[in-house]
């Protein structure tokens, strides 16, 4: 796969720029992010948004896949409780989020690297502040070093037990 070389700013030790993958619901947070754009709000450029029809579509595997492929953080944006465009998809998201958080903790992934926010279509400002906060927190945590070696060891132990 042909890929872009990491730029100087990305490789420099001086300032670590985290990479965050976001899953935004088409009906609320994605719209709020659009509104942030139309309102020309400025926020950190570290987030890459994947649009889904509902936060309930976020398969836990997506989150794990993002971390496995080098994301330093994962952000899920869904509709406020009671506001889901599909009635209750966001409640399913919430359940999975809590479960996944525990799994990630077991894997040594810090809590602040995984965030769920309820952001309505009108809350552009919340997109800005939530993204900025998350980028700051993840920047403080530093790069996520998911050492493959550690993972292999973990599996080895599992087999031994």
């Amino acid at each position, binding site marked *: 796969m042909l890929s872009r070389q990491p730029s100087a700013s990305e490789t420099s030790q001086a300032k670590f720029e985290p990479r965050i993958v976001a899953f935004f619901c*088409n*009906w609320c947070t994605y719209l709020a992010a659009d509104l942030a754009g139309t309102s020309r709000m400025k926020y950190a450029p570290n987030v890459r948004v994947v649009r889904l029809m509902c936060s309930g579509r976020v398969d836990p595997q997506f989150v794990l896949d993002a971390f496995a492929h080098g994301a330093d953080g994962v952000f899920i944006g869904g509709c406020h409780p009671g506001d889901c465009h599909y009635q209750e998809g966001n409640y399913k998201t919430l359940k999975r989020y809590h479960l996944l958080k525990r799994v990630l903790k077991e894997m040594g992934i810090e809590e602040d690297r995984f965030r769920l926010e309820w952001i309505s279509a009108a809350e552009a400002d919340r997109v800005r502040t939530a993204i900025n906060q998350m980028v700051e927190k993840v920047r403080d945590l530093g790069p996520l070093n998911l050492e493959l070696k550690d993972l292999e060891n973990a599996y080895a132990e599992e087999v031994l037990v």
Partner: protein
Amino acid sequence: MPEISQLSGPEAVRVGFYVCHCGTNIAGTVDVKALAGYAASLPRVAVSREYKYMCSDPGQALIEQDIADHKLNRVVVASCSPLLHEATFRRALGRAGLNPFLLQMVNIREHVSWVHLDKKAATEKAQDLVRAAVQRVALHKPLQKRRVDINPSVLVVGGGIAGIHAALTLAEAGKQVYLVEREPTIGGHMAMFDKTFPTLDCAACILTPKMTAVGSHPNIKLWTYSEVVKVDGYVGNYKAQVKHKPRYVIDDLCIGCQECIAACVYKEGKTPDEFNLGLSMRKPIYLPFPQAVPQKVVIDRDTCIEFKSGKCKKTCVEACGDRLAIDFKQKETFDEIEIGAIILATGFKTFAPERNPYCGYGRYPNVYTSLEVERLINASGPTAGEVILRDGKKPASVGIIHCIGSRDANTNRWCSKVCCMYSLKLAHLIKEHTGAEVFNFYIDMRTPGKGYEEFYDRLLDEGVHFVRGRVAEVSDWAVHPSEEGKLVIRAEDTLAGFVRRIPVDMVVLSVGLEPQSDAQDVRRLFNISCASEGWFLERHPKLAPVSTFTEGVYIAGACQGPKDIPDSVAQAGAAAAEALALIDAKSVELEPYTASILEEECSGCKSCISLCPYQAIAFIEEKKKAYINEVLCKGCGTCVAGCPSGSIKQNFFEDEEIFEEIEGVLAYA
């Protein structure tokens, strides 16, 4: 997971990539030339171009031409939000003979160029997103939109001027309309007004003909004292459940003679009259106001003696005689209706001035809200059109305070738009009725509208006083003999440069407009959004002002934001036209983002069945497999994410497609 390499060979993927400058909107922040160059270096990209306006006709023609010339079978457009132009570019693909769903859009305007300042970082982000899209689009499959028939009836919620106008427009076009109003009569706020600005035509004179037209129109089913309690379905095929609250009077039998009201054992009204805002009293059996539509009385069970003790002489029943219209045992009833479109015209409420204690409302009896003064001025109001103080005397001086609950950091920040004009109207009417000296206290005079500024000029000529500045306090604290027994308005006169004390007999608070207190419940019911202030959110503030993000649900009037009568009527007409355009098309296309079961992989665990809020998933016992009914599926994808064996796929959001996108944005590492 199918490897992308499998898609090579005779079915080789050939991607056309297009980046839009959007004038300088994108090109000013993202290096579009570099982006096009970068995309050209990605695998499977056959053509990569940048163009000033991709959404323009030549821009779309460029794509169509390339599809033919370069045998493209996938297209990626990096431009604005897909919610804006995905449909545009899908149509372009369709015209070129390519399935529209072989397109992927990259949002580099709303999500990149407009929100980032650092050009380098913005360009890098755009590159990541483009790479993800190019990877993802390779897996896209041709999809077909589903076509469903549209039910040609429309539900209009709210019987104010906006709802009335929308209902009449649709009914005139020959459509079946259900108009649901929760109060016992239609008319809304407009029915409470005396005159309307700036022409001073009488509100009742222009409104009541429309109200009676609604009441008698063969195509309108008018349900007052009713509420929509449940909404199901989707565009073109909504189902709604309407609750009819008991009036304790049988609609079909009541002829509106009002003899029962005269006969009520209460000789005088003892309950504050809602329509007159408590300025007069009504009996337990009443007609909200003389021109009410329908002309059917209502019994208020909270104050009726029969309901309280069961021992009333029931003189009302006697008076009704063999018409037999009164039924104390009436229960609430429900109707189920099927409609193709819904128009919400649920209106506003006025600001409660108790929230601004400094203006003295509730503390000093002669401090009124503007709506109360409308009722005082109105000939059918509590004082038969006399503007009088609580002691019955005519005021010699009146202060009108603008922006109560508007343009105020402590309450509502927005301008309520109508208050300047109605304050001018009230100033004129009060002066006409009483000859009083009238003072207007305003922040700015906002009179944009046809004939509005001229009306302001007229008021200046009529000798109404205008004081520019915010009022600090209304009190009865006299510091000078001339202030004894008066209400003193303290305000900064910003034009004169000092604080003034102006003693008046009567204070009118020009209260602003607010979303209805249950606006949040209503929008949940109809699955639409509210802006942060609580007004219903339109699909686009300029280009789709009456549409919502839920197809087939439209909004009109002040439920969308403060609006005067002309604007509400204009919006109602627009909403009716949108609804007509939808239902007259007879059928509608639905996005094909539905989910389906991969039967060979389904283990029959039934985990998905409880996840579906639409009961679209059934379990087929013979096969021990789940089955998704495509008609019921709305395409949220919750079941796909919840399936433990990965045996559900969602069109356009297949696992593999999303994995490609995730890995694509992260691939440079």
